[in-house]
């Protein structure tokens, strides 16, 4: 693709990036940052392309290191974001490890407020 087309796409993507996150409440700053963090793990695509074209063993080794790092970024990023967001979801209770908060759970249902 020629340079001007790539430049056009870049500039448009900047505006989309600005637009899409303006007016986010501070409660969601952390998950949003974490989600954006996962998205740049897509450098994995670049790492795969480079590794797929490597013929020298040293080049392959470095490229595979890049694949490992990029996969960690991509997979870990999406998983940790999902875990964060799980907490934001409604009232579904998780069984606590110490069993203590069963009382809390029952009590909080009975709250009148």
């Amino acid at each position, binding site marked *: 693709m020629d340079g001007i087309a790539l430049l056009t796409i870049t500039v448009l993507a900047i505006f989309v*990036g600005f637009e899409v996150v303006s007016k986010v409440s501070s409660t969601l*700053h*952390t998950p949003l940052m974490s989600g954006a963090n996962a998205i*740049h793990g897509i450098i994995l695509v670049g790492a795969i392309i*480079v590794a797929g074209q490597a013929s020298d063993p040293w080049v392959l080794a470095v490229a595979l290191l890049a694949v490992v790092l990029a996969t*960690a970024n991509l997979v870990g990023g999406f998983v940790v974001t999902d875990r964060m967001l799980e907490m934001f979801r409604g009232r579904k209770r998780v069984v606590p490890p110490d069993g203590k908060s069963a009382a809390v759970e029952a009590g909080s249902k009975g709250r009148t407020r």
Partner: protein
Amino acid sequence: MTLIDPVWTSLLYLAAAVCFILALKGLNSPRTARRGNLVGAFGAVLAVATVFTSVKMDNVPWILGAMVVGSGVAAPVARQVRMTQMPQLVALFNGVGGGAAALVALLELAHTEDRWVRVAIVFTLLVGAVSFAGSAITFSKLQELMTTRPVVFPGLPTLMGAVLLAAVGAAVAVVFSGSLALALLLLVLGLAAGVLLVLPVGGADVPIVISLLNAFTGLAVAASGLVLGNVLLVVAGTLVGASGTILTRAMAAAMGRSVAGILFGAFKGGSTAGSTAVSDRPVRSSSAEDVAVLLGYAQRVIIVPGYGLAVAQGQHTAAELALALEARGIDVDFAIHPVAGRMPGHMNVLLAEANVPYESLKEMGEINSEFRTADVALVVGANDVVNPAAKTTPGSPIYGMPILEVADARQVVFLKRSMRPGFAGIENELMYEPQTTLLFGDAKESLAKVLSAVKALKLS
């Protein structure tokens, strides 16, 4: 393997890019956030599947093996990490992404003669290396592997300037010569710049730096897309770069800080480093029973949870204490500072995990005027977010940060581990005020003692 038509490749990449935009859009609202994240993950899977079928690939078993290793390490860690340690994990994932981008650019250097492509290569190398090294330092600060105070030494600005100048020189030389040795030098200079950039940042500002480095990695990924001529990398990287920049500014605004002030504030030296001396002025410390009496005969109690509560895993006990007090007819709320914990929104996540009902969680703007009517403000493991120095001491590192106005409450009770200052490394004058009572000890143990003492009180 037969390859698919390049038009299909482009369309599939476009679909993946749309998924990423929808993911960021979804993350704007609590209702759609989880779905948004899944859409993003779907886009990523789509893009990775596409790359395998679109270009001629050697070494496929090796690549798949490397992907198994990468996800085999990252997924369990991401699944099992304690929620209190989440910020440093995000920093870590961000750093390895930047590192991957830098390595990709390094390897592409041999494949091009084009000077403009080399410009994109040196940009990716430098920014990716800064992001990698900077994230490593933020990780060490958050994990408390090193001091959380700003690290400043004489000559730091000069050293930083020299490293940046050398990096620019090396970058120009790489663009004109294509030398691999010089590219490696540039990589090392980038790593040094990343370390020097983050060292002087104070502990409380670290989350903002994570967000900034996140935007940096996005830019590095976008530039690597220009190197490889891959539109998806350009779009995804630019999206993260742009949204990360906005997010960094929004976070800084929520803490009453400017991004430039955070990065370069400590360079000016002086009071920004915080006072190290722990003063030996008298404080009023008391027993759990006394605190229980204060709480048990109050009308209205506001609990201010901080990172100390989360570290001690005391959320469940705090929730039980709130219930015990409510059973006595006392009005109890939790006051959540926007940056309570270590990142904006972090405390909401932690308390939600501990099953504290949403309606008890009050945001700062909502609760601040209510401290005046509160009999007791119970500060559990928080310090900087209630420190009046943010309003009264212009030289203080947290000056200008909005705080919870606990000083307005009739009584203030601090549950603290010790007199050690908070994450920002500054003392809290509030602890020496006559209305303040301190109860020393681990947050969870102290809460448990107070809880049993409250239960032992006779109903009045």
